[in-house]
């Protein structure tokens, strides 16, 4: 199973790589050139040593020729290494850019069903952190794995070409290096796990105490917090020491093996020189190889873990990029410019989870310009109705028609252009106040924006901000209160004045007096426009033409404020409980 998934991921990676075929071929070619030339150099050096046997016996003519040859080779190596590096950079960064963009594009058309079910942090980390890790792994893989393998093979071949027996010494000692590295990494793995567990605990504490620093200070709890932090900190420090120390043994250990190889080559090589099997230059060349032979082994084992990690990361990004997108707009979808606002719900069924029915057989006819308020206890499906009208979700069966057209038969764009929406959860875009209000109409003039802000009673607080309408605000900016954010969101809709309105707890964080004032502006805005209002506060919805009282996904009462009070049912109860 896991292997199959791995294969799928690799296939996907290859699909992305394909686009940069030429670069890949170039990279591989120059990697091979680099390796061969790098390995050839010690042989030439060895020859050079042989040309200068002793005093007065130095063959300068041949030495000069050789040196010129070496210079050319060195320059070629440098150039090909550079080209290889550039190719690798180009491949990696372009692929990651493409992957990231594909993932983001997919995200933009994923159904809300998926986005609501996944934490934003998780999706973000796929697009950013995972993609980045993948890039690092891929780059390392390209630069080191391939050259590493080539170097090992090349070194062996070159060594064999000089002398079989000394090569054997090298080959026999090599597995020792693997064994040592394997032994250490197994031990280290456990210690790293302990370290991350301790780190996790500490992060949780930091999150809690630093995140809620204000409460900690209000209760002068600083000393206690510091004490428990100190305890965890000590523990973490200990585990961290273990993990760091054991993992850092790998390097000396492999270097030790390397030195053994060197000693082995030195002794056997010297003996072979005595017997005349190789020259001193040959021995010097061998020593050069021995000094570098084990290096690629270390690198490759590092690269393998890195690549595994990179594949895992890639799999996570691809998972997102392969997620089923929302149903696209139908082929000849209609694009009504301005809707009148006659809304008909015809036997609508809907549920978020298949076995948990929420809305069943919902019917409603809204005439153009009517104000519909939806009331009811938490979880009764108020917000769901709005999700359906905006096509954030589609009904399981039944249809919603606006001006006689099923909303599935219009483009989402034209549908949403016709509806202004204010939600309880305010969302502020990073940018200026002006940009935030003008989000639906970027070309709006300053006057228009100020007019909208005045209508939503946001103007008075905006002008008190440091840079007025040019003040930069952030999504998590604590500089704005919840109520102020909500006023901004209302101003956005005021600026657009769309033919239909949806207000989902749009004034829940605003004080009643300001709300009352905004109500007037809203009333003006809603004149002749179909609007849906969801509110917890009943004072907000009293003036609606129709009040739907919902419970468990069904409408249990329907009428205007007076008629519902008279009826003495669920609504009347809800209303009277305010004054108890």
């Amino acid at each position: 199973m896991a292997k199959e998934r791995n294969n799928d991921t690799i296939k996907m990676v290859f699909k992305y790589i394909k686009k940069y075929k030429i670069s890949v071929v170039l990279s591989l070619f120059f990697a091979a050139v680099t390796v061969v030339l790098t390995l050839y150099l010690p042989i030439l050096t060895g020859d050079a040593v042989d040309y200068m046997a002793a005093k007065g016996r130095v063959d300068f003519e041949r030495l000069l020729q050789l040196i010129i040859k070496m210079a050319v080779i060195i320059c070629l190596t440098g150039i090909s290494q550079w080209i290889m590096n550039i190719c690798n950079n180009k491949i990696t960064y372009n692929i990651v850019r493409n992957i990231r963009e594909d993932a983001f594009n997919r995200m933009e058309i994923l159904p809300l069903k998926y986005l609501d079910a996944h934490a934003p942090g998780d999706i973000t980390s796929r697009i950013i952190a995972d993609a980045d890790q993948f890039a690092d792994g891929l780059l390392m893989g390209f630069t080191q794995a391939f050259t590493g393998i080539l170097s090992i093979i090349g070194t062996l071949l070159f060594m064999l070409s000089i002398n079989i027996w000394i090569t054997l010494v090298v080959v026999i000692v090599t597995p020792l290096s693997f064994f040592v590295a394997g032994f250490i990494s197994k031990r280290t793995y456990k210690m790293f796990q302990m370290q991350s567990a301790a780190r996790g605990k500490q992060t949780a504490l930091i999150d809690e105490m630093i995140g809620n620093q204000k409460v900690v200070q209000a209760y002068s709890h600083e000393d206690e917090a510091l004490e428990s932090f100190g305890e965890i900190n000590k523990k973490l420090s200990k585990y961290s020491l273990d993990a760091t120390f054991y993992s850092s043994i790998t390097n000396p250990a492999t270097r030790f093996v390397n030195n053994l190889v060197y000693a082995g080559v030195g002794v056997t090589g010297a003996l072979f020189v005595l017997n005349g099997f190789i020259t001193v230059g040959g021995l010097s060349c061998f020593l050069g190889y021995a000094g570098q032979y084990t290096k690629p082994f270390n690198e490759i084992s590092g690269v393998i873990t890195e690549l595994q990690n990179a594949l895992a990361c890639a799999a996570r990004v691809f998972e997102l990029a392969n997620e089923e997108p929302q149903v696209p707009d139908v082929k000849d979808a209609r694009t009504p410019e301005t809707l009148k606002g006659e809304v008909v719900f015809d036997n609508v069924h809907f549920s978020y989870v298949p076995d948990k029915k929420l809305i069943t057989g919902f019917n409603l006819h809204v005439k153009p310009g009517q104000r519909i308020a939806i009331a009811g206890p938490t979880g009764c499906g108020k917000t769901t109705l709005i999700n359906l009208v905006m096509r954030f979700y589609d009904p399981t069966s039944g249809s919603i028609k606006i001006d006689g057209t099923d909303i599935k038969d219009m483009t989402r764009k034209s549908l949403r252009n016709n509806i202004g929406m204010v939600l309880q959860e305010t969302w502020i875009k990073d940018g200026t106040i002006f940009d935030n209000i003008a989000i639906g109409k970027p070309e709006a003039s300053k006057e228009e924006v100020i007019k909208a802000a005045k209508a939503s009673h946001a103007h008075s607080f905006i002008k008190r901000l440091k840079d007025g309408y040019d003040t930069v605000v952030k999504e998590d900016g604590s500089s704005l209160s919840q109520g102020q954010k909500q006023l901004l969101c209302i101003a956005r809709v005021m600026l657009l004045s769309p033919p239909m309105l949806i207000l989902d707890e749009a004034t829940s964080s605003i004080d009643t007096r300001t709300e009352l004032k905004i109500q007037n502006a809203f009333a003006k805005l809603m004149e002749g426009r179909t609007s849906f209002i969801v509110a917890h506060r009943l004072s907000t919805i009293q003036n609606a033409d129709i009040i739907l009282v919902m419970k468990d996904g069904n409408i249990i009462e329907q009428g205007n404020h007076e008629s519902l009070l008279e009826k003495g049912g669920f609504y009347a109860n809800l209303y009277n409980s305010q004054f108890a």
Partner: protein
Amino acid sequence: MKELLVYIKEYTKECILGPFFKLLEACFDLAVPIVMASVIDKGIASGDKWYIFKYGGILILLAVIGLTCSVTAQFFAARAATGFAANLRYALFKHIESLSFTEIDSIGTATMITRMTSDINQLQSGVNMALRLFLRSPFIVFGAALMAFTIDVKAAVVFVVVIPLLAVVVFGIMLISMPLFKKVQARLDDVLGITRQNLTGVRVIRAFNKEQAELANFADSNEKLTAMQLFVGKISALANPVTYVMVNIALIVLLWTGGIQINAGNLTQGELVALVNYMSQILVELVKLANTIVLATKAVACGTRVQGILSVNSSMQDGDYGIEDSARKPGLQKKSGGAEVKFEHAGMKYKGAGANSVSDIDFIAKPGSITGITGGTGSGKSTLVNLIPRFYDVSEGCIKLNGRDVRTYKLDALRQSVGIVLQKSILFHGTIRENMLWGNKDASDEEITEALKAAQAWEIVTGKEKGLDYVIEQGGRNLSGGQKQRFAIARALVRKPPVLIFDDSSSALDFATESKLRKALQELSYNPTIFIVSQRTSSIQHADNILVLEDGELAGQGTHEELLKNCEVYREIYNSQV
């Protein structure tokens, strides 16, 4: 960055021993080519097999000693690095706790958390690396050059020329790419920001049909990131080839001068092999150095960021008048009746704000009285009460507690005397009892029960199987909004403070529970001075004095009846709610 060295002081010994053993190891590494040279010149030349074996043994011995030294070095380095990180984390945590709300607001909690976690982690591995490699690599480079001189001065001259050149190249590339890497990070942050925004604001973006604009926005940022990466990549891609070419050109020069020297009889073949070996050692070390420099750069950046937080000092000066002083002089008295709170033309401006958030607030809250505070969104209600326990300091006028300016009290003593229930109820991971003990560490179970009862939270506790030992999850995830709010109120009551402040903290309670709570508050035995902030007039209409705020200024004060008669703003608020 230098200031951070204090935290490694405790590990001075390790910081010296670590590199010392590393250098020792390097010395043994440097001895290897010399040993090999004598194998060639003496062993081979004289045909002495024993000599060769003996020196082979010496090589193995050198390897063993080298291993021992480097393992010891790694140990000291790891100890210094982890110890340093632990010290720094502790100091930073402590420092953050000492910051006032003004600094917390301007730094932001997310930033502080990253500094505490990932930045310090990076710094730790940076220190570890630095102790291990930063001395070793240059040492080998210079050591190799030095050894070359002991072999033959003329042949070694090339080392003197090439090493400074290499240093210029390596550090030059580093200096150029360091600021560029920062830019790459900044662009990555942009891409991250856009992604996050698109997720949290998906409904708004789709409702306003902004998908195409956002896609273009993302593609643009993504492209910029890639362009930057490629640009930096081009520069750092030069590092390896350039060093390779330089070292090997030096090798050629070495071979040529070596040839001349051998011909003149000043140098042996074995010695030349040793010189060649030193040259290749230099290359290996330089590559390592270049790689660690990247890591070091990151660590330095992290260190600077951490230092940035450490250098922010609390803008609030502590007073020196403590609770213990109050026995002799008039001041705060704990657990015995309410305190008098007096605002004298107090005004407050947030740092970086354009105008005052509250100004010219003037009133007296008598001991044991109830003060209601109401007003619209953003009218300054919370700001006003935050001034009493000195979460923020006034910028004009002053606030007096029992006749003394709050700024003259010890902060700790002042906050012990003020119980404040914040707008957002925050509870901590731990049992109900542990959460209650935040109010007062020495509270008995009886006192806790009493407080819980007054806060109308006792029924929640009895509803849990484990009672007071019920474990609340982080952030109170396993409680409803109303339950959290009642626990937060109880936590403040456990303290029995002379001043109690409720900052819009009963919004999640239903009307019946709220009125019970109000009654319980009036009956508290220690008779505290109470402040209630609320948008709902029903929550404050029974108060002894009601302050009505409008755009940060006092629009009126008095009892409910008086205000209905004289205060237009209050009347409007009241009428909007009936």
